């Protein structure tokens, strides 16, 4: 089972899609152009601080709001390995899977983890932090196949023998 570890950035409840990417930056041409403005209404410095392989840990209802698919795309473009939250809004959940961004639900971690610490994740099994283990549910195989392929379009190409 895949294992990875990463440095944690901690966010609160109801992180909405306008926080993840404000409307005024949606007119920029590419997701790469938009990425520096991710989370800017809340923490303007955050996008520049996030490094490849980092992990976001948040509270309930992460990604609520708009259906704008740029939201998960930008989080992925920043190099975020996965988002762990108490719960995710449903449109954001689908959009993340479709863009190959790994999401993990866990009710407890957010309330104990400190920003800057490292956590270790064993996919579909558990998170380890400060000697404690936090169990996580496994995603169905078809959804993991989409994430591993890098998103729905790439997964369909693979399935149809086009790649």
């Amino acid at each position, binding site marked *: 089972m895949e294992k990875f570890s990463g440095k944690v950035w901690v966010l609160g409840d*109801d992180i*909405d899609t*306008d*926080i993840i990417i*404000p*409307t*005024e930056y*949606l*007119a*920029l*041409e590419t997701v790469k152009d938009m990425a520096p403005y991710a989370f*800017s*209404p*809340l923490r*303007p410095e955050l996008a520049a601080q996030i490094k490849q392989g980092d992990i976001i840990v948040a509270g*309930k*209802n992460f990604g*609520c*709001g*708009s*259906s*704008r*698919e*740029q939201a998960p795309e930008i989080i992925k473009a920043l190099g975020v390995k996965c988002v762990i939250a108490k*719960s995710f*809004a*449903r*449109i954001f959940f*689908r*959009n993340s899977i*479709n*863009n190959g961004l790994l999401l993990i639900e866990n009710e407890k971690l957010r309330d104990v983890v400190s920003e800057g610490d490292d956590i270790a994740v064993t996919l579909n099994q558990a998170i380890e932090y400060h000697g404690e283990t936090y169990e996580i549910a496994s995603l169905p195989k078809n959804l993991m196949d989409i994430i591993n392929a890098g*998103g*729905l*379009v790439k997964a*369909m*190409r693979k399935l149809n023998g*086009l790649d």
Partner: protein
Amino acid sequence: MGMTMAEKIIAAAAGVEEVKPGDIHTVELDRLMSNDGTTHLTIDMYNKLKNPHIADVNKLVWIVDHNVPCDSVKTAASHKKMRDFAREHEITFYEGAGVCHQVMMENHVTSGELIFGADSHTCAYGAVGAFGTGVGCTDYLYAMVTGKSWLLVPETLRFELKGKLPKGVYARDLILTIIGQIGANGANYMAMEFGGEGLKTLNISDRIAICNLCVEAGAKTALMEVDEITRAYLKEHGREPKHAFQSDGDANFAKVYEIDLSAIKPIVAKPHFVDSVVDAKECVGTHIDEAFLGSCNNGRIEDLRAGAEVIKGKKVHPLVRFLVVPASQTVYEQALEEGIIKTFMEAGAIVMNPNCSVCWGSCQGVIGENEVLISTGTRNFKGRAGHKDSFVYLASAATVTASAIKGEIATADMI
């Protein structure tokens, strides 16, 4: 075991006898709506496919409404891409006709349909008993190419309505009250179903306002029971129901809420969360810089009438910009005929063409640093209407108009 409305629509679209919450089904979609918020991204992905193909072009409706008329060279390019593609593929296309959900309700949606919209407020279509749900552009592309998608059957929350809203209290106050009660993720992944005797007191405009905002409680879809009011609306617009499903008597609801409409009061949702609701009276006196009457939630003729009634013969406060944006050209024409536009203009309001306007914080009327907006729009997230350090209060058309007159948050009974 009986089924809920949501379960029956999914079962019909999946071609199976029975479904239950938690099942995943491949469904045939009836209609696919997309707007200029993301269609350019869908087209980019479509053009990269090895075998690009549209399953059934008659299902597609594309609507330019977020930036109308366009406000920059970049949005002009995005619109051109959408317009050219729609023309080439003979896709039903609207530009400037109104906010997408209002245009869909006036021209396309019927009871029992299963509809994907690349916009979160697609759940509005439940007003006539259609299962509308918001998706991103990748899901939209998949549905456009295959005609199908997969759906997890949601659990259903049932809202049993009784009584009648008091005078001066609106459907907008009702749904904000419900969202405040269950929370911004209180219906996450779920369907919200509305029925009961109280429903008969709500017209289609009220029902759209209620269903449209259910995504702000996290709902996958919202559904109203189909009744004589639904049938009359559809008939007036030249349509028949596809199915007129009701939930079975023994259907399984995750929870049933009883809502007494007569107990609802004017409500305000404070920054920066839609579920941060209080009695409007608690916000009276809060300074405002701008007021907005419009959007897919509250820009219909009934909402304009409510505002006009409050402002007739009065003036907009000299320090307030009051934007009035009819939700569609049809609404605009009706408001012209009824003299409502004249009433707003004489009062000093800025009346604009139908579009999403400041509700989504682009194109028109965005607010600056530390400014305060009171709005009939859909959301009050931090930075939603402009500067990251600005503030949005949500309220009914009557409360918004009263506030525009006073220059601070006020209820209509204070005018």
